[in-house]
């Protein structure tokens, strides 16, 4: 058999488990064979692992309007380096992505850039103002994969209910930043003993859980309204960046009841906690805030038992100057695309025996299921959007080497394993960090 690329002696691991070592032949954008063949290019991948390309349901790529923080080129390059073949961009840009033309323009430009594939999310309401719904049908046709007012919160329950009800007709899930603005007030970190002692405005766990509880009731209401009509393939509601044990508990119960709800968690909420704010460094200012170690522990359990569907990076780049403002004025967010996989592989799989196939599921099939994409498995005929990564080589996080414009990280200096060395999108290499043969 003839192909373009032959990845030899490579360990195969996907969400279904380990599949031993194989010679993977790739051509015409697909996996042609797991049993070798002829190819123009050979890679000796002894000691490396091949997995389906990662999919991020939540990244802020800042284009249009905030290219000083990130643009499509830097953001999608960062994604490719992080092992992602697919990325969902959030619509809270300047102006917000709330029309089909905006979605189409982003997709066209991303295709020209040719890094990770872009799947824009579009605003749920016009201008993300929380008033009039956007054109879900036209947005879906243009390629929008989610509707969300992320960057803001959905304060009007009536608008959210209408939005969910309407979007479902066109196969779109509504994704929400679940925080109650009134309860959150001006909080910049988790409310509790640490915030009280540090004298920083707190943002309570209950700002998240109260909003999730409300939104789950809205899902029940919308289901009743739909009366069984509408597509059942996808969830009505996707809860972004879950941060608390209490919020997780509500979603776990809702799922047990069979409610069509999905959720994601970010790498920072799994590996960092509020004590980091003791440094008073705005680097640790994220929304929702870092919670307690017990919350992080609960989220890891939720990721394991499937209550949490996927990892969403919430990649949220800002300029260095912005992150060096004070804790009240610095913006929320950190760049995560380039560290997500090695971070969680090291901290969860290597240090805590978290099962590798499960973590892979949460980076691959999980997010694709949320978005209504087909799963990618390592078998002949599968789409060759893949990542080759090194489970052994240890390297510190070096933010100054990020492709992202945001060259800072709360994990700077952490020694991690699992770094991607090759990312393929439909057989095409979008990132190559292979060491050249001597």
């Amino acid at each position, binding site marked *: 058999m003839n192909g373009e690329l032959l990845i030899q002696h490579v360990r195969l691991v996907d969400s279904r488990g380990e599949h031993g070592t194989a010679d993977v032949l790739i051509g015409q954008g697909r996996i042609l064979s797991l049993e070798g063949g002829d190819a123009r290019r050979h890679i000796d991948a002894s000691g490396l692992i091949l997995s389906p390309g990662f999919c991020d349901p939540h990244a802020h790529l800042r284009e249009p309007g905030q290219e000083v923080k990130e643009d499509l080129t830097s953001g999608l390059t960062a994604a490719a380096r992080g092992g992602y073949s697919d990325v969902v961009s959030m619509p809270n840009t300047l102006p917000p992505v709330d029309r089909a033309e905006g979605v189409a323009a982003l997709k066209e430009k991303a295709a020209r850039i040719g890094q990770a594939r872009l799947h824009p999310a579009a605003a749920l309401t016009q201008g993300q103002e929380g008033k009039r719904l956007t054109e879900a049908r036209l947005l879906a046709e243009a390629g929008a994969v989610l509707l969300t007012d992320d960057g803001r919160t959905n304060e009007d329950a009536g608008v959210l209910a209408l939005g969910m009800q309407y979007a479902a007709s066109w196969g779109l899930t509504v994704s929400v930043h679940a925080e109650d603005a009134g309860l959150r007030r001006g909080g910049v970190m988790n409310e509790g*003993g640490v915030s009280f*002692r540090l004298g920083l405005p707190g943002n309570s766990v209950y700002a998240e859980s109260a909003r999730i509880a409300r939104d789950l009731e809205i899902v029940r209401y919308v289901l009743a309204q739909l009366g069984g009509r509408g597509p059942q393939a996808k969830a009505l509601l996707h809860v972004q960046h879950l941060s608390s044990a209490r919020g997780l508990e509500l979603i776990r119960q809702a799922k047990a009841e069979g409610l069509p709800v999905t959720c994601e968690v970010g790498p920072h909420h799994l590996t960092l906690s509020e004590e980091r704010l003791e440094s008073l460094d705005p680097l640790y200012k994220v929304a929702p805030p870092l919670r307690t170690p017990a919350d992080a522990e609960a989220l890891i359990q939720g990721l394991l038992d499937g209550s949490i569907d996927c990892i969403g990076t919430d990649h949220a780049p800002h300029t260095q100057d912005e992150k060096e403002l004070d804790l009240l004025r610095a913006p929320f967010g950190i760049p995560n695309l380039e560290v997500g996989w090695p971070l969680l592989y090291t901290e969860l799989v290597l240090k805590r025996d978290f099962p590798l196939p499960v973590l892979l599921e949460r980076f691959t099939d999980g997010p694709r299921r949320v978005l209504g994409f087909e799963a990618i498995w390592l078998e002949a005929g599968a789409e060759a959007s893949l990542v080759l990564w090194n489970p052994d080589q240890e390297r510190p996080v070096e933010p100054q080497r990020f492709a992202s414009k945001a060259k800072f990280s709360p994990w700077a200096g952490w020694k991690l394993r699992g770094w991607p060395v090759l990312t393929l999108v439909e057989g095409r290499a979008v990132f190559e960090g292979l060491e050249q043969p001597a």
Partner: protein
Amino acid sequence: MTVTPDTSAAAPTPRSLLDFQGWSRAQLESLFETSKMMQEVLARPVKKVPALTGFTVATVFFEASTRTRLSFELAARRMSADVLSFSAATSSISKGETYKDTLLTLDAMGVDAYVIRVDAAGVCHQAERWLGKPIINAGDGWRAHPTQALLDAFTLLEALGSLEGKKIAIVGDILHSRVARSNAELLPRLGAEVVACGPATLLPGTLPGVQLSTDLKTGLTDADAVMVLRLQNERMDKGLLPSLPEYIAGYQVTQERLDWAKPGAPLLHPGPMNRDVELEGPLADSSRSLVERQVANGQAIRMAVLYHLLVGKKPRGES
């Protein structure tokens, strides 16, 4: 004539005074000893010592506070330091001129120590990371105001002799008060028992080392001293308090309520005071009030802090 306080008893003085982390009781007591010597200096006809000749102290106020700035600047001048005074509105910080740029520009002028006031917690920590120089926190947001707590403690020590086993009541908006937080950190280290008392919406959930109460009588009963905090009108605007009369009804310290405290228990207030809001007007001028002592002691304390952080170091000079 020079003052040469003995600072050898304690471990090396921390580089900065950001809060009281890293300051041992022995170091704090040594600071109070130095403050007493500074009081003597301030009682002389020529209120000046050459201790900090050649040093440059910058006061950097991102939040306006004329009283605190003048107190620090006078303290530095009385120690013969040169003073560089910088004020900027935080609005200019939000508009792209960064704290870091501002501080590095000042640093190029050969500053030896910085006195920083800002409306957000943590900027003094950031400044120390960027500059690596002694920083005196002159108030950062709701977090800390250590020289205020030091002068409060010093004034209480003068009035009560010792703080061991003494009950100190702090009344008012505890949640948003850097003065309350710094006193909560300092006073228990000196042996005092602190009760912080205020409306439920202005109390933190917890504060280490401090008993919290919404009941003014609980707070004041048998108190050895009462510290009254300023109430900001902003709290009403943000919906945390229904109204001023409502606050006065529940929490104003009046002559009658002060009788719950021990006889003669002194009154402190960090200033500036809202007369007839947090404190009944005539009480402010009564013999119970130590407000003027606080202001005077602020001088001595700030001189002592500068002394402890700088003496023994080499001035940088112009660079």
